[in-house]
């Protein structure tokens, strides 16, 4: 891909991202009415203290939409780049952020926090609703994600060298273990309908009722990835011939591996903790973009940042437009619409753009 084509693609997707974002701000899932562009502008200005707030509940509704929009874009960016980086590192198109044990860990952390909130264990905690409860669950998910990925890394490191295949296997094994525990919890807690529902909501991800803290989390994740991109992009291209080959060319492979794994683990922990398990983004976005822009990570990684945001924003917008107030978990739409879209793309492309 030429530099010019890359710039055009970048500007194009960024614009698409902005348009989707504004469109999403204009929709409202709460009262079923739409804001005009002018109202959106005024509401945003009011948020930073440059205008009077919108009348009635409008201002609050618009702000809710804003956090939702920012969280959706951030989740997409984190998972998109995370997936692209891991596929490059593992030299495997099946790699996705969940492989580091992050999603399972986040899920388990959230489940434990929800159980605590609903009175299982030492009930010193707040009622199972409200802002503090959301923050608690998010925090627990984030901690769970980081702890699990740390454990995966620790086991995979074994005798000092981070072996990529080993990392993959440990990640898969860890996810299996956690999945087992989670299913056991779900079965045991089935008699408690409210808690079951809360757990299920978490498993499939949700963008409802997001708070500034969620937007800030995924923002931090996306920022960390953006900073890492220039330091791993060329290196991941050289990894394509194998780790030994990259080393022979002068790549500090240990540093590259560590940077990729830490940045990805952090960013995806942010994403999964902020919105639950949003499946598929980390797997599909890099593949779609590779078909469009070619395999070089110098173009693929920045494009995944905006491309991931576009995908999650787009699907979320679609859901709002089609389903309106009937809520559906974000991950569900991702699977039923994103999945077939990807299959069609694969069928047309003939072959998968190798990592």
């Amino acid at each position, binding site marked *: 891909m030429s530099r010019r084509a890359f710039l055009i693609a970048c500007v194009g997707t960024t614009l698409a991202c902005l348009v989707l974002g504004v469109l999403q701000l204009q929709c409202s899932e709460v009262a079923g009415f739409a804001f005009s562009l002018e109202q959106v502008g005024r509401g945003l200005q009011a948020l930073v203290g440059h205008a009077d707030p919108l009348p009635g509940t409008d201002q609050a509704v618009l702000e809710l939409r804003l956090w939702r929009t920012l969280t959706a874009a951030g989740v997409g960016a984190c998972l998109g780049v995370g997936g692209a980086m891991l596929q490059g590192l593992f*030299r495997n198109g099946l790699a996705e952020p969940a492989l580091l044990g992050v999603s399972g860990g986040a899920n388990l952390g959230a489940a434990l926090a929800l159980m605590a909130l609903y009175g299982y264990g030492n009930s010193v905690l707040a009622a199972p609703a409200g802002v503090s409860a959301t923050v608690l669950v998010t925090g627990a998910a984030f901690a769970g994600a980081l702890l699990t990925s740390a454990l995966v890394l620790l086991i995979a490191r074994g*005798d000092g060298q981070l072996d990529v295949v080993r990392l993959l296997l440990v990640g898969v094994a860890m996810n299996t273990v956690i999945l087992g525990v989670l299913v056991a919890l779900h079965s045991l807690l089935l008699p408690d309908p409210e808690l079951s529902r809360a757990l299920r909501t978490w498993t499939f991800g949700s963008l409802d009722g997001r708070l500034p803290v969620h937007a800030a989390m995924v923002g931090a994740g996306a920022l960390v990835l953006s900073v890492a991109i*220039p330091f791993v*992009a*060329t*290196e991941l*291209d*050289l990894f*394509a*011939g*194998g*780790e*030994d*080959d990259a*080393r*022979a*060319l*002068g*790549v*500090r*492979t240990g540093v590259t591996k560590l940077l990729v794994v830490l940045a990805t683990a952090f960013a995806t922990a942010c994403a999964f903790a902020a919105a639950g398990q949003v499946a598929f983004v980390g797997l599909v976005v890099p593949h779609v973009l590779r078909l469009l822009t070619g*395999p*070089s990570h110098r173009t693929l990684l920045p494009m995944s940042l905006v491309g991931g945001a576009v995908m999650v924003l787009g699907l979320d917008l679609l859901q709002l437009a089609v389903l309106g107030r009937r809520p559906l978990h974000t991950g569900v739409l991702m699977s039923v619409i994103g999945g077939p879209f990807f299959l069609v793309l694969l069928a047309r492309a003939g072959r998968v*753009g*190798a*990592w």
Partner: protein
Amino acid sequence: MVSVRLRAERLALRYRGGPSVLEDLDLDLSAGELVAVVGLNGAGKSTLLRALAGLLPAADGRVLLDGTAVHTLSAQARAQRIAFVPQALASLPPTTVERFVLGGRYAHLGFLRLPGPHDHATARAALAQTDVTRHAERPLAELSGGERQRVLVARALAQQAAVLLCDEPVAAFDLPHQLELLDLLAELARSGHVVALSTHDLNLASQYADRIAVLHEGRLLVADTPARALSPETVAHVWGRRLRVDRDDQGRPRITPARQPGAS
């Protein structure tokens, strides 16, 4: 070019937890000579080259590049001075030939690893030197084995390192291309590079090498001129008695396989 010297001192190599591959090996490679490493399968030819390239840790002893132990060099400093051509890649990068060869410039790139005009020019010159310019825009995966091997050599040339270590560089080539590549490597040696290659082809080694290192059962048996290294006794000892050794008109050993007597 400054004269370089690559030297293995009492080098011992073994796989982690496994038996030793090479023991107590001393070998001196200097600028201006082409050294061929020969031996049976599993004799440790690749292992030796990889250790000389600083890519395998020594179990004992050390490898010195102009007096500096290679394992103390940074990856970048090492790659600026030593290029290693693998026998094959672990996997094929999904990229074009020219972009792949540009990867050889990595150790010379600055802070954000952006190749400049000089890097592109060096890569194109390397493509021309190895006769693959016409494939520059093709995906690496579309090339034949021999073409791909030449591209690997091109990438090592783009690295502009003083030491060039090639693991069986001509194994996948047709005969004319074998000769062409060996001509190129010999010329690089004459122009002041340290060039070492491993091969199974004793006749090509005999024709092209200034010195031949014979590895056998984990030891360096001999490292000397072709006439001395491929003496009838050594050849019989390492490769068996069914190879006839005589001399061509320039006095270089010529090895001819003989059929089993009585076999039809």
